């Protein structure tokens, strides 16, 4: 029998891989034009990000941040909202975290201090997402444009605030260093093979967050309302879902997740708030959500891939000055294009192929 729809394994697995490969082939072509060998670059990248255990630990460290931003974008997408503002929400979340640290890092024990910081990060991140969510729900202002504006506003605001936070006598645009009570437990203390790397319990927390996300979206009544709103807001409305409420709550959760992404970046590595610390992690979250098709396993795998691209890309840029870190912003855009906007590009060809092989088998 002739199939008219692709089976699940094809849409969920084969198409994303083909799309990813297309993005990487174009990226390889650009690297070739820059006068470098794409294969050699790939070798350096894999070597530095996966084969080397220390590199692998760094890959996982970056992935822990990206899982949170990827979740932030994904949960909004489930409700049909395209949250471009994870970058700004993470930045402002870092402010909440830092304020909690500056206030309590001398008085509280790590067992209380770190949760306090997380609450601060989540609250501030959620607060930064509230207004775009509210305006979308009540005024119809498109969340895409408002969240982009909030990214710009966050950048200027944080620029102003961080300059105010510089301790006396310092030049570096950053807050003071937090006390040692704010240091997250490192995974290297349990697995010495990982070497001197910042991989910390945030990686485990990120996996817990993925599980909670999966349960909340597919196994709870709230998740059902969320997906109903995303699939058909009118139908959901007639079924009794309060659309504007769902939109606002979803944006709050999304902002909180983006805010939590700052915990790994700040408490896991620098231990102070610095200028532009998210470094694009919020935008990477968009690529991850699209590539991982908002599925927990997909988000995990895409986050690890992006962690590897960042870690490997760093070493690559040292060895090959023609391939700076910004190359990976370009690759990120390509991945969003192929996995997001042109996700069904290969579907007709794949369908033909399946029908062809099916005929032979029969």
């Amino acid at each position, binding site marked *: 029998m002739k199939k008219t729809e692709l089976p699940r394994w094809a849409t969920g697995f084969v198409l994303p891989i083909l799309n990813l490969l297309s993005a990487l082939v174009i990226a390889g072509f650009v690297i070739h034009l820059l006068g470098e060998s794409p294969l050699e670059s790939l070798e350096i990248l894999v070597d530095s990000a996966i084969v080397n255990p220390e590199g692998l630990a760094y890959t996982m460290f970056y992935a822990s941040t990206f899982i949170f931003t990827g979740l932030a974008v994904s949960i909004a997408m489930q409700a049909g909202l395209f949250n471009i503002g994870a970058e700004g929400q993470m930045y402002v979340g870092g402010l909440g975290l830092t304020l909690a640290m500056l206030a309590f890092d001398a008085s509280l024990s790590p067992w209380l201090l770190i949760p306090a910081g997380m609450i601060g990060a989540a609250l501030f991140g959620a607060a930064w997402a509230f207004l775009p969510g509210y305006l979308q729900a009540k005024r119809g202002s498109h969340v895409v444009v408002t969240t982009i504006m909030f990214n710009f506003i966050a950048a200027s605001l944080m620029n102003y605030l961080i300059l105010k936070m510089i301790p006396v006598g310092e030049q570096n645009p950053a807050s003071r260093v937090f006390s040692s009570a704010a240091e997250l437990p490192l995974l290297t203390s349990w697995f010495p093979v990982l070497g001197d790397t910042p991989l910390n319990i945030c990686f485990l927390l990120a996996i817990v967050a993925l599980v909670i996300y999966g349960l909340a979206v597919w196994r709870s009544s709230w998740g059902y309302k969320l997906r109903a709103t995303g699939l058909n807001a009118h139908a959901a409305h007639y079924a009794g879902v309060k659309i504007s409420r769902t939109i606002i709550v979803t944006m709050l959760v999304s902002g909180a997740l983006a805010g939590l992404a700052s915990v790994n970046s700040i408490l896991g590595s620098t231990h102070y708030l610095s200028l532009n610390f998210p470094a694009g992690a919020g935008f990477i979250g968009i690529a991850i959500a699209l590539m991982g098709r908002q599925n927990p396993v997909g988000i995990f795998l895409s986050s690890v891939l992006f962690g590897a691209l960042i870690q490997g890309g760093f070493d690559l840029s040292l060895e090959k000055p023609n391939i700076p870190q910004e190359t990976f912003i370009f690759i990120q855009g390509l991945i969003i294009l192929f996995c*997001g906007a042109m996700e069904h590009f290969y579907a007709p060809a794949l369908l033909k192929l399946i029908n062809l092989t099916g005929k032979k088998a029969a």
Partner: protein
Amino acid sequence: MEDFHIASIIVSTIRNAPVLMFAAMAGLFAERSGVVDIGLEGKILASAFVSAAVAYSTQNPWYGIAAGIAVSVALAMVQAFVAINQKGNQLVCGIAINIAMSGLTFVLAQFFFQQGGRTPDLGGARMADVVLPGTAAMENIPFIGWLYGHVIGNQSVLVYLAFLLVPIVHWTLYHSRFGLRLRACGENPHAADAAGVSVERTRYLAMLVAGVLCSFSGAYLAIVQSGFFLRDMSAGAGYLALTALVFGNWRPLYTVLGCLMFGMFGAIQIQLEGVDLPVVGRIPGSLIQMIPYVVTVVVLAGLMAKSVAPKAIGKPFVKSR
């Protein structure tokens, strides 16, 4: 308050506005045909880089503009392909273009010029301002001399083009056959289709026009206003242009008013820097930088309910059987 000159605000408003005007007119064509154009930002950035790089290496601003058009049209065609053939998500496609161009322009600028993602100063390749005949003779007449020599005259060709485009776009949209079809495709593509209009063709044409118009925005930014390309120099201009569209209710004349308004905020912003104001005192530069973005949110929040977007915007057209 002595540093606060109305005259220089007017002049710099006129010089700021074309970046937004070209982009907003581009967005107007795309969105009135039913294609969301979030990718204005990326097209501005790409054409700014290419026109600066080509103008510098050929020492001819016109080659720069031509190259900018080519790149911007190519990106618009990618958007058209996604929106029309792939029936994909147009917002995602636009964001992808913006992010990809933000990275690629830096990589290429670094590769060719090794100046930290900046092109060298264009110098002689920067587009010269037009000095109208008789400027010197009228220089001494109060007000009229200033108006003729510094507001109407002494501008780049692209500034004249930007203002000239407004009536042209208005006429095209409301009084030409193409404009009627364009609006039909944006409001009710099925009716347009039933009347024998090819929705695909109209939208491709609209995106072509959008690509050309948007390239002028980038070229103006790089080879007229700044005289170089700088990493991420568009700084949200594409999104401001989209907001001007919302402000103008997707109508050319009102949209231009929105662009002039944003241009004026930019001009005031420069004037405010380092000036002691009464009551509030000196406003820090980083807070002044926020003004256009805050204004955008306020405009969107206040006007979106009254503003009516083209009905079929963002929806892929699937021919009914």
